[in-house]
């Protein structure tokens, strides 16, 4: 399979201004290929999370350029970026962050309903399917806050996948899980990268997780080493 470029950053520089001006990213550049499973590691304060949020398009206060699937995202408006995220990027956070008022199924369906490409029935079918793949059969209609931590994290993954995003990003996606659940999540990511060609970029502290990925990017003091 020919590997095309999925994500590319050029000379990324970012400052924090509070409490005092401090350069977090000092000119970071790298390229991620389609279907690559990447992990970003580094000590806390090395700028790895900051880098991920710039990659995620949520943080727009930076210098340099960000390109995903050939689209230059630097300089787009918040609303354009929101639409782009909806379609092309899936997120998994350290603290699963589901909407507690909604059932597991609804949580998974929401991004797809927002995208509005498929009918509600199709989305629902797809959400059931993806929850089943993540071993959540029977939990679909439970309220999100009544699921265990591991189950919630898997619901969050299902939500990240619902729109078939080309890039999936995780901020310590296994940080809150026991080793069994952690391993399961890693397997899911690996499978997604290999079988569906989705690019996966995860920030992690867990050396096991990092060693299980295709490439490790180590950050130190705002630079890739």
């Amino acid at each position, binding site marked *: 399979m020919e590997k095309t470029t999925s994500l590319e950053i050029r000379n990324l520089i970012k400052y924090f201004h509070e409490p005092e001006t401090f350069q977090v990213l000092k000119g970071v550049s790298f390229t991620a290929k389609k279907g690559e499973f990447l992990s970003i590691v580094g000590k806390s304060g090395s700028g790895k*999370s900051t880098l991920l*949020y710039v990659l*995620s398009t*949520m*943080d727009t206060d930076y210098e340099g350029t960000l390109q995903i699937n050939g689209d230059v995202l630097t300089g787009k408006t*918040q*609303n354009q970026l*929101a*639409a*782009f*995220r*909806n*379609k092309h990027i899936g*997120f998994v*956070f350290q603290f699963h*962050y*589901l*909407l*507690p*008022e*909604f059932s597991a199924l609804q949580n998974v369906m*929401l*991004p797809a*309903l*927002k*995208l*509005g490409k498929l009918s*509600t029935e199709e989305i629902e079918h797809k959400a059931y399917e993806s929850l089943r793949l993540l071993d959540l059969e029977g939990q679909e209609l439970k309220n999100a806050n009544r699921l265990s931590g591991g189950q919630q994290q898997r619901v969050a993954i299902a*939500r990240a996948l619902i*729109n078939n995003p080309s890039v999936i990003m995780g*901020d310590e996606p296994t940080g809150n899980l026991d080793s069994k659940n952690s391993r399961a999540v890693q397997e899911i990511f690996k499978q997604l990268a290999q079988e569906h060609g989705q690019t996966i970029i995860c920030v992690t502290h867990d050396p096991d997780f990092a060693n299980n990925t295709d490439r490790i990017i180590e950050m130190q003091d705002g630079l890739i080493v």
Partner: protein
Amino acid sequence: MAKSTNIQIARAYLTSKIWQTFVAVLGVTFGVSMYIFMNSFMNGVNKTQDDLAFSALSHIRIYNQDNMNVYNPIESQFNQSKTIINILNRKNIQYTTGLNNSSSIVSSVKKQTEVIAVACQVNSSVFFRSGSKKVNGIISGVELEPEDELFKTSSTIIQGAWNNLQTHKTGIILGKLLAEKLGLQINNSVNVLTSDGVSKNYMVVGIFESNLKTMDETKAYLNITAARQLVGENSDYASDILVNIKDRDNTASFIQKITSMIPYQIESWQEANEQLVAGSELRNIIAIAVSLTILLVAGFGIYNIMNMTINEKIKEIAILKATGFSGNDIMTIFLTQATVIGLLGAIVGVIMGYGMSLLITLVPFTIAGLETLPIFFRAQDFLLAVVFGILTTLIAGYLPSRKASKIDPVIIIRG
């Protein structure tokens, strides 16, 4: 699709904290219902006041006043300087007062489409005498039918009948208190003495009781023909012509229209009774001020609740944004909540305001011919209450919604 998703989320948020939603709705409900109640009550009071006033007051009065005469032939003749003029014991001439050609004026006024009723009156101040009792008062010679049309005088008669004036040429109808003062009853005779010294006897054929004490104490009705005889005027004479028009608040334009045709003074009720106008205006201002204050307070309540909700949901808003919901979507979600709160509150408020007003009409209040507290509903009050209620909610909901739409997801998610 995306729109309905936003609405679905708004609904979930509204129903998940039903108590909060209920309190917010209640805020609007109180504002709207108080607005309706206050305004309906004030309208009722104003209407009662007006009905009371217009039981003795016509919308327009045409009369001929004895103007102070300034014509001075000597001074205008000898106006050169160095002339000393000294007129001793100068007398004013009595000019004719009243209208000598009432029928032509009545017919020209009646041609106007706005006119409801026109009545001629012959009014004169007189002494009523009965035995050794002597009471001064006003005698009012009236045309029976038009007078009744104007003031519904026949409904104030408590003894005898209004139409007795028609059948008895020497009949008189006295105010209740006047009759008591003179010690008179029906079919007794009363002597009337005019300022010109004419004295005539009349028979009491009726007694009236109006809602105005001064009228009951001083007034008596005669047939207009009898009154003309009493004051010694021709058969086309009237001291006042009273006109009622369809829209009593619109007297100014009507007067402007007829003023060229009528060579006498024309006075609207507003000019004659400025305190009436001022009273009702002031009451209206109070009603609006009170109800708007209530709505404002309700608005602050809603603002607080929306702010609280948004602070509670700040993480979820960040998640929604991270998964692709735009600032506008977030705004739609929270504005939808505000709209639902506003609509629900307004609907319940209308029902409650209506109910509250109906309850108030059951409270007894027996002064000045009233039985219960007055309430008068106007469609425009209900409409404005709903508009204000929803507007307040939207404004109160807009500010927190805008705040929510501007939340930066990165700050929240990173913790």
